[in-house]
């Protein structure tokens, strides 16, 4: 059942993103990123994200994103996103952005959790409607995983709750 619901949502997101490319009101972005772990146990994340934005004005846009986050386990984040250009869009445009959502863990021995990524970045226009960007921010990703130990005398299981805080860095492409 949950797989069906998840597929429906993915289809809806894909439809929105395909439509997004057809109008000026919509833009589309993809990025890869990593981070500097600030919490213990530490884990350096690797992220790949795709986002669709609806441009409410020249400066403010809202959107939704998904992708893949690799921590101790692979996670699929689903998040809402808001982006504000600090100055009127030009060749170089600094901006503020915040994504908030929830990550799903496909692994049967893990659960995802709350996701948040406020950041500050700069985008550079390379040609009409095509930009590259770089962003620095803070990323919080909660995660639960099963840890096990097999010994001659016993086996043991413990459900470890992790709250990964990191300084995030992302580079990407807007079109």
């Amino acid at each position, binding site marked *: 059942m949950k797989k069906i619901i*998840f597929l429906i949502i993915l289809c809806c997101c894909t439809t929105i993103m395909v439509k997004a490319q057809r109008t000026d009101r919509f833009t589309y972005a993809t990025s890869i990123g990593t981070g500097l772990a600030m919490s213990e146990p530490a884990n350096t994340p690797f992220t790949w994200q795709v986002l669709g934005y609806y441009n409410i004005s020249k400066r403010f846009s809202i959107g939704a994103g998904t992708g893949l986050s690799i921590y101790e386990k692979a996670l699929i984040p689903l998040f809402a996103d808001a982006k504000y250009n600090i100055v009127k869009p030009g060749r170089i445009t600094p901006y503020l952005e915040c994504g908030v959502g929830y990550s799903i863990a496909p692994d049967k021995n893990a*659960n995802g959790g709350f996701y948040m990524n406020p950041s500050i970045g700069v985008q550079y226009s390379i040609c009409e409607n095509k930009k590259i960007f770089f962003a620095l921010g803070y990323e919080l990703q909660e995660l639960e995983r099963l840890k096990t130990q097999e010994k001659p005398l*016993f086996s*043991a299981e413990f*459900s470890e709750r992790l709250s990964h805080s990191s300084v995030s860095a992302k580079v990407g492409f807007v079109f």
Partner: protein
Amino acid sequence: MIYLWFISLCSCQKELINYEKGDVKVSVEQGNEWLHDFPLLLGINKKNPPQIAIWLEDTHGNYLSTVYVTHKIATQSWQASGGNRRKEALPHWCYSRGVKYSDGLYLPTKKEPLTDGISGATPQGSFDIKLNPAGSLNQFVVKIEINHSTDFNEAFPKSAKEGDPNYSGGKEGSGQPAIVYAAHIDLLSGEKSFEAKLIGHSSPDGSSGNIYEDISGLTTALHIVKRITVNIQ
């Protein structure tokens, strides 16, 4: 769409531990002092959960095996410890385990972290461990050692000097020493629930693995946990 999204997310939360008949569930229930202010810098405090070790002994008091220990002591990943290896953190477990490292301490090191038990992030509240004993393990003792760093009180002050009986590692040290609980388990007795009893506190400065039954100097340390029970499913 948003409704579907929430339904989907909620349904993706799985129960990671499933208990079956005969499994042993060690439940540590948090007390009022589970989280303790740890000074970071400029008067900023961080709410820290305690350091914990859970291990098994035979009925004669011989160490059998570590079940669970918190990540920081298992990997020596202390924050703001001022170089202190924190031998006073969980000394009864360290000495019971009996593994001596190159610096003469019984503490795992960064280079040689604990591998013979589960190590994990310290739980922010109550938690359970599942044990599935082998057929030959019918009578045993579950021991739990718990400690907060820098929980100084009148009996174990920050100002205590090295060599004093209440010295606990200096200003970055333990304060009140670790406390130790034990539950005697007999799987053949027919009993289904065993409560762990507080049996004393550990060496304040971590110089030995002794247990001290006099707990009159302890205050907040006695409320780190509310109850520890071992239930047979």
